[in-house]
């Protein structure tokens, strides 16, 4: 219609495209003596930001290896997954990544195997359950970084006020205790049940384990809508939600809300992990820790969670990465990180140190649960999609029709598994 505008537009577009071409060359291919490390932020303010930790590690490492440089990029937990995804998609792959999952990257053949980037000494130092959880089809890719196990936390003061002698062991005892707390008015929220998107996959699994259910069967097929799991949600709705013994909308209540309520003395009990210890202490809550109640008795193996380190082979810096990882997994560094956030170790020497130093008495119930911990199906490349779907809509199973919600999830999980 109009030649001049067409010409102007074309010129602009051509210039823009020219710019891309130039940009394309400089992007991605970084200097081979610079390692790019992307890590999740475990802190919640500047004074305990993980960036501080990693900068210090990088500095020490650079002191020992004058020819190498480490570029640290620490990203908020809420954003890290989508940001890493976009990085990979646009070819801006980090050399080393520390985050929550690894198997999806194995499916795209992006990672070095653990034995390619770790010295035998470092490898042997990992606690066996975790090394095993890092395997995909028999080869270890995921390198465990920190771990935690889950237990029941309860507020002793509230329990005393409500006349509860000891922490509940079975689901029925949970409901009883919650009823007592409610009728005595000792706490706003007798049982804090967070099924919101933040951590729905964790809370769900802790409850499903109590009824002998899990996410996958022995062959690794997803069983999200198994009868036992539907029962679990039905029980929760009838016994905790409907009588008003927990949040009115668990599906949109995030774990941080539950933790904050417990740390403020406003929740009677909940499932938690070691970080809650510090929060409870800060809030001057007199808390107790017990195994998570199951339908007929406390869980024999509780949920174990590990976060992972992985090395990308895109930039081909195998030797440099190996040097850095051996350094990062030294006892000194691991201990520093674990103690900074009150998390649990994944290496034997650090565990021995933490158990024997006497400084970590409050972690003992969590250490005990470590050897028998059950994990998410971490080695399944489709797990990240499944986990994201559970986070998004799994909590809705607490509402009127668990079979339907879980059924839809199961379908999505099967699609994801077929498509990996």
């Amino acid at each position, binding site marked *: 219609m109009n030649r001049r505008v067409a010409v102007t537009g074309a010129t602009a577009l051509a210039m823009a495209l020219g710019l891309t071409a130039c940009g394309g060359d400089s992007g991605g291919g970084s200097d081979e003596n610079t390692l790019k490390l992307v890590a999740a932020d475990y802190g919640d303010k500047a004074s305990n930001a993980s960036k501080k930790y990693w900068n210090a590690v990088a500095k020490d490492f650079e002191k020992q290896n004058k020819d190498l440089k480490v570029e640290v990029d620490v990203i908020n937990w809420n954003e890290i997954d989508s940001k890493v995804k976009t990085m*990979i998609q646009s070819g801006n792959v980090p050399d080393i990544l520390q985050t929550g999952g690894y198997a999806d990257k194995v499916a795209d053949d992006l990672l070095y195997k653990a034995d390619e980037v770790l010295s035998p000494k470092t490898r042997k130092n990992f606690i066996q359950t975790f090394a095993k959880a890092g395997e995909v089809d028999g080869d270890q890719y995921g390198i465990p970084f920190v771990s935690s196990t889950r237990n029941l936390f309860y507020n002793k003061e509230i329990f005393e006020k409500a006349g509860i002698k000891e922490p509940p062991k079975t689901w029925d005892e949970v409901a009883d205790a919650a009823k007592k707390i409610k009728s005595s008015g000792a706490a706003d929220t007798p049982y804090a049940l967070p099924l919101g998107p933040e951590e729905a996959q964790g809370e769900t699994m802790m409850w499903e384990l109590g009824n002998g259910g899990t996410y996958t069967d022995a062959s690794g097929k997803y069983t999200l809508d198994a009868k036992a799991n539907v029962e679990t949600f039905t029980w929760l709705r009838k016994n905790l939600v409907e009588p008003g013994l927990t949040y009115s*909308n668990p599906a949109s209540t995030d774990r941080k809300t539950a933790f904050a309520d417990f740390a403020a003395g406003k929740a009677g009990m909940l499932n938690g992990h070691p970080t809650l210890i510090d929060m409870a202490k800060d809030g001057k809550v007199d808390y107790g820790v017990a195994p998570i109640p199951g339908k007929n008795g406390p869980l024999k193996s509780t949920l174990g969670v590990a976060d992972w380190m992985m090395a990308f082979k895109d930039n081909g810096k195998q030797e440099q990465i190996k040097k850095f990882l051996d350094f990062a997994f030294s006892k000194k560094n691991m201990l520093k990180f674990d103690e900074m956030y009150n998390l649990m170790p994944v290496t034997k020497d650090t565990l021995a140190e933490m158990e024997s130093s006497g400084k970590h008495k409050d972690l003992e119930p969590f250490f005990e649960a470590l050897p028998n911990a059950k994990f998410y199906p971490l080695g399944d490349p489709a797990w990240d999609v499944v986990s*994201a779907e559970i986070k*998004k809509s799994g909590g809705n199973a607490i509402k009127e029709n668990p079979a339907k919600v879980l059924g839809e999830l199961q379908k999505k999980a099967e699609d994801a598994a077929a498509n990996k």
Partner: protein
Amino acid sequence: MPDQAPVSPASRSRGPGGRRGAPGRRRGPAGLGPLPWIAPAVLLIFAVVIWPIVELIRTSFLNISIAGVVRGSAGFDKYSKLFDDSSFAGVLIWTVVWTLVVVSATMLISLALAQLFNQRFPGRRIARWALIAPWAASVLMTAVGFKWMLNQTAGVLNTLMLDLGLIDHSKDWLGTPGTAWPWMMVVAVFVSLPFTTYTLLAGLQTIPEDVYEAARIDGAGSWQTYTGITLPMLRPAFLVGVVINLINVFNSFPIIWAMTRGGPGSDTATTTVFMFQLKETDIAESAAMSVVNFGMVVVLVLVFLKVSGWNKEEDA
């Protein structure tokens, strides 16, 4: 923006470009015509607005793994996956409801506010300034503020309603769609009011006093004056308000993202928020959602062009 769009007949005849007497032949420096004047603007638009649109459309036809690796073309698969999603229909319906409710409420309340703040009263400047606060403050921060005020445990709005006896126990307003939608709409209206009210105030300023004088002499009552004179003369400003709000509210993201993240599930998501949720599981499906979103905006634009008579404007 909608430059000459909501024009009154008067201005259409002598609108900026339509100045017949203006020396149209006269050129810019060096006889390059419009190029030196408008090229930078066009360039910026192409580089930062048009290019990502192209990129977006391309992405929606790719098969991208969860880790972010491109595994070749997906054809229309991502679109069918999107349309098959059990939340999709609900999201579309709510997007329309959200946009209509928020825009109409904003326009109606703004009309009243503009009328009120156009009166003379002691302290008008300070009151007007207070009205501007939600506009000056970031929408995100305002939404986070409301989320905090609605907090079940310690939110001041819960406390206030308890003390006033409006509710008998503290409620989790944002936890369930039935109450989350109304509250988010309240916040959306709240942050849209200042701009809209000011646009209407500006419109009111352009109505000459002698028109009112004439009406008064004719013995018209205040309601008659309002419907007979003020409203019709306010039409251009009102249209601008409607259009800008339609676009803003339709695209609105920070409010819902900050307050519910679209949850539980996708029960409180509009298309924009849904697109963000999909990014977590399938970036190409998310791109497909963006393209659909884009399509809806294009339709909105076309309808607007049609209604405002853009094509009749001129024929250059």
